[in-house]
């Protein structure tokens, strides 16, 4: 009986000591990330049947249990993965927003400066300093385009660098999880299937870290290991084997890296972006395809639209040397890439037919075999053209430059990606600014009638020589009163009907063969009165073309006639801003979800120091009490010896 009391006391002492150990462990790890509190699983020993009754035999510690909920942990990991994605996307997008909408660093001030300098030159069109000012502000505008584009390129490089480090971190986590799997399997086998709590916590922390990079799914195995899958079931960790991911260059676009699954055989299979649904990696990919590409394309589109429309008007003018104006900006080119994996040799050529009709999307061309292709717009997936090349769509023309394509070959068309980078000034000679118009009009001084001819507008360069004089012989309009018409002679032959009785308030004419010249005749000409249209030689004080260039500022030449340069840019800013706002709202919502999930998990698994303090006292008292039992058992034995003595 005495032995039994001693044994009971000893078992209580041992259990209380174990309890103190577990409590101490909990206290020590209260601040360890990913730590799940542990609890003692204590049970009574099998009772002994003695004298017709069962007598308890004390206590034993059956296990140290990890307080943990698989379900809540999965919830928390999923929420955390989504938060990491949104945080990354929103953080990167904020950088675009900061650059675009800055009142000093954005495109707007540079654009306004250009038109300001155009207007200032219009006040004194022959002034060399004013011409230099206009060239300088145009130069500043191209620099601004380029610096915005460079900033976006830096973000793209940043995405690549983060993808590389993200993939490295995934690989490291995967290796550690595999090695923890191995240790857990061994440890639990040795312990007869009892959980290796701290190793499990370590593995769960690694899984959480992995989820921060990319969303993974896990499946627990009976031996204690977990298998980890990525994407649509690519095994990242199976038992003790870890696979590897790699950041590889995109087959179509060499400037971007993709996440690929490394095959044991050596190759790598790119994981589709849509399969990577959470974590920082997904945030980076989403930022790149949803925000960065479209912002850079939209910026390039503005640059190309500006170059095309400004050039078109500038070419209708006459420079200080008397020559017709040339291009003002270098028109950026569209780019086409063939996939590195293509079996055929086809090289595609993309060219801009009308920059004002361009969209902000890239296009994927797929060879269908037999010389046929299909062109898909990446922004909405619509097939915009199919059949043999060349194909024209969205202000763009795609043709086969050389070679032949095999069925399944694919190509990427980036019409506007490099627009903002490639726009540049076409000349540096201040005299080459076409301020005037190439033609001028005059009513002969000897006219006795009151006919006047307007200054007129040149709408094309048809029939105009590049250098002065643009028309060798002036066009003379001689009024024939009897026939009610002007007879043309000189540069053109023919007649223009004009009835002074009804049309003296002004009748518009257009000469398609002569610069598409549009002018108005008004007043009452006398018979034989002469009006002339001649080359504007020495017309250095003429500012008509500058006024036309200046009018482009408020015209709506872009987006198929729906947007001015400024409003196209404002649209870009507002789109990026709206995206940022949506992301911030989604992030705030997701953060509170994550907080809830995290709290729910912490509520189950976390350590409460007050609780541990209470446990400390409980086990301490239990220990003291068990000690007393042993003491009493000793005393009983003494009593027994005293009786015998």
């Amino acid at each position: 009986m005495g032995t039994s009391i001693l044994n009971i006391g000893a078992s209580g002492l041992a259990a209380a000591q174990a309890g103190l150990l577990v409590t101490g462990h909990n206290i020590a790890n209260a601040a360890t990330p990913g730590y799940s509190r542990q609890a003692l699983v204590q049970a009574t020993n099998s009772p002994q049947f003695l004298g017709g009754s069962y007598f308890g035999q004390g206590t034993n510690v059956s296990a140290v249990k990890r307080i943990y909920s698989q379900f809540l942990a999965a919830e928390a990991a999923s929420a955390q993965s989504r938060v990491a994605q949104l945080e990354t996307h929103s953080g990167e997008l904020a950088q675009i927003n900061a650059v675009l909408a800055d009142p000093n660093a954005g495109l707007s001030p540079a654009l306004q400066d250009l038109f300001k300098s155009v207007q200032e030159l219009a006040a004194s069109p022959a002034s060399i300093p004013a011409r230099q000012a206009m060239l300088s502000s145009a130069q500043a505008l191209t620099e601004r385009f380029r610096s915005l584009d460079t900033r976006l390129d830096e973000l793209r490089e940043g995405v690549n660098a983060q993808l590389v480090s993200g993939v490295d971190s995934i690989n490291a986590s995967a290796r550690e999880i595999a090695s923890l799997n191995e240790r857990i399997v061994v440890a639990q086998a040795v312990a007869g299937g009892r959980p290796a709590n701290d190793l499990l916590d370590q593995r769960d922390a690694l899984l959480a870290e992995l989820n921060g990079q990319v969303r993974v799914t896990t499946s627990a195995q009976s031996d204690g290991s977990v298998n980890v899958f990525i994407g649509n079931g690519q095994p990242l960790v199976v038992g003790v084997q870890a696979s590897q991911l790699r950041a590889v260059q995109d087959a179509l676009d060499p400037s971007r890296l993709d996440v690929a699954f490394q095959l044991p055989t050596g190759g790598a299979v790119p994981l589709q972006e849509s399969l990577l649904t959470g974590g920082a990696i997904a945030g980076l990919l989403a930022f790149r395809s949803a925000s960065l590409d479209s912002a850079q394309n939209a910026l390039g589109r503005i640059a190309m639209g500006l170059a095309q429309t400004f050039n078109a008007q500038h070419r209708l003018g006459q420079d200080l040397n008397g020559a017709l104006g040339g291009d003002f900006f270098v028109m950026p080119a569209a780019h086409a890439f063939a996939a590195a994996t293509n079996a055929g040799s086809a090289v595609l050529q993309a060219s801009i037919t009308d920059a004002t009709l361009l969209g902000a999307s890239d296009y994927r061309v797929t060879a269908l075999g037999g010389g046929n292709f299909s062109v898909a717009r990446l922004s909405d997936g619509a097939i915009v053209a199919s059949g043999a090349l060349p194909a024209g769509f969205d202000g763009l023309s795609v043709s086969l430059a050389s070679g032949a394509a095999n069925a399944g070959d694919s190509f990427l068309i980036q019409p506007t990606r490099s627009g903002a980078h490639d726009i540049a000034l076409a000349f540096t000679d201040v005299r080459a600014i076409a301020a005037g118009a190439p033609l001028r009009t005059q009513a002969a001084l000897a006219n006795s009638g009151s006919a006047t001819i307007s200054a007129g507008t040149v709408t094309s360069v048809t029939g105009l020589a590049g250098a002065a004089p643009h028309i060798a012989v002036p066009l003379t309009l001689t009024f024939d009163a009897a026939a009610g018409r002007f007879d043309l002679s000189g540069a053109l032959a023919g007649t223009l009907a004009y009835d002074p009785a009804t049309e003296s308030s002004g009748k518009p004419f257009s000469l398609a063969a002569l610069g598409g010249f549009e002018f108005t005749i008004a007043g009452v000409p006398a018979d034989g009165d002469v009006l002339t249209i001649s080359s504007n030689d020495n017309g250095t004080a003429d500012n008509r073309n500058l006024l036309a260039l200046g009018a482009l500022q408020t015209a709506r030449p872009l987006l198929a006639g729906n947007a001015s340069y400024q409003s196209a840019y404002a649209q870009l800013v507002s789109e990026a801003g709206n995206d940022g706002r949506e992301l911030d709202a989604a992030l705030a919502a997701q953060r509170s979800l994550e907080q809830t999930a995290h709290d729910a998990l912490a509520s189950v698994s976390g350590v409460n120091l007050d609780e541990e303090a209470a446990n400390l006292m409980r086990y301490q008292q239990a220990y003291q009490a068990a000690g007393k039992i042993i003491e009493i058992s000793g005393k009983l034995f003494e009593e027994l010896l005293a009786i015998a003595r």
Partner: protein
Amino acid sequence: MRVTTSMIFDTGVATLQRQSASLLHTQQQVATGRRLLTAADDPVAAARALDLTQAREINAQQLANQDAGRAALGLAEAHLTGAQDVIESMQARLVQAGNATLSRSDLASIAQDLRAGFAQLLANANATDGNGDYLFSGYQGRTRPFSGSVEGGVNYNGDDGVRALHVAASRDLPVSLSGADVFARIRDGNGSFATAAASGNTGSGVIDGGNLVAGYDGHRYTITFAAGGGGPEYSVEDFDPATGASTSSGPFAYTAGAPIPLGSGAIEVTVTGTPAAGDRFTVAPSSQVSVFDVLGRAIQALDAATTDAAGRARLANALGEVRGALSGSLDGILSARAAVGSRMTEIDALAATGGDLKVRYESMLSQLQDVDYAEAISRLTQQQTSLEAAQKSFLQVTQLSLFKFL
């Protein structure tokens, strides 16, 4: 719910961070004075602010263009006023030259004055702006618009180009004048028709400028004198340029100073003095002459003047033609000045509107993107207070521990 120690710390820290972030945002708004720190703060307002900024800049540029236009017009006006003074003084000299008692040398000295006036007028017409560009040569800023001399005549080398400036939305205001319009498109005579005496006239007949009674038909009339039985008589040839037909009427008896009706009385001219047989006077539609041609004719007539009766009549006829054209020139310059004046008035009106718009744009922009300091600072204080409360309560809650009592 079971609360864990790390929850107390994590939640507390997260709350503090959230509050700090709001506080920082408000602080940045106050520090920069901008409500919109990035486009994401208010995408619609950000885009609208960009558009408004452009509108404000365009308005500012139009104000600058108005100033440039005002300067250019002011310069042109100064030279027009100079030209007007010259022509007015020459008109006075021409009236003086009409005095039949002047001697040959008096006429020569008037001719000398006119030559000086001619040179002065030429200088006005060839005026340049601050850049050395000619004011009145149309588009050809580097081409001297008027060149020539009294004897050789003056040519206009410029063109009809008129430079405009963009002074308001869809308003390109002309800020220059073509020299042809100001100096070279003078309608001689009375604007409808001009009278002239043939250069070979030998009598003392002087024709006046004529009188428009009903409406001029555009025909050319030639009045030819002959020695009739009872004194000079004349016949009239009526030439219609539209048909090329000519009809003759007369002879009629001549009475000095009596109106001679032409074109069925639509116009009438008066001849005074005694025309000799064979003397001819013509009436033709007004043509366009330059002020320099007109002055040149006057100077040459004065230079060639003789003091006999026929000579005085030739001078009187020549000066009569010139006076009509010169008052036409003055009208041309006056109307050019009026045009300049009305454009400057227009600029003033536009500048007033532009000034208003400037204020309006500034206030709209300010509403969109500037921070409301009263609101922002009270928000800052509120956020500061709540952050302090969070900090204090965090401290208190985290200080609670059972271990303190162990």
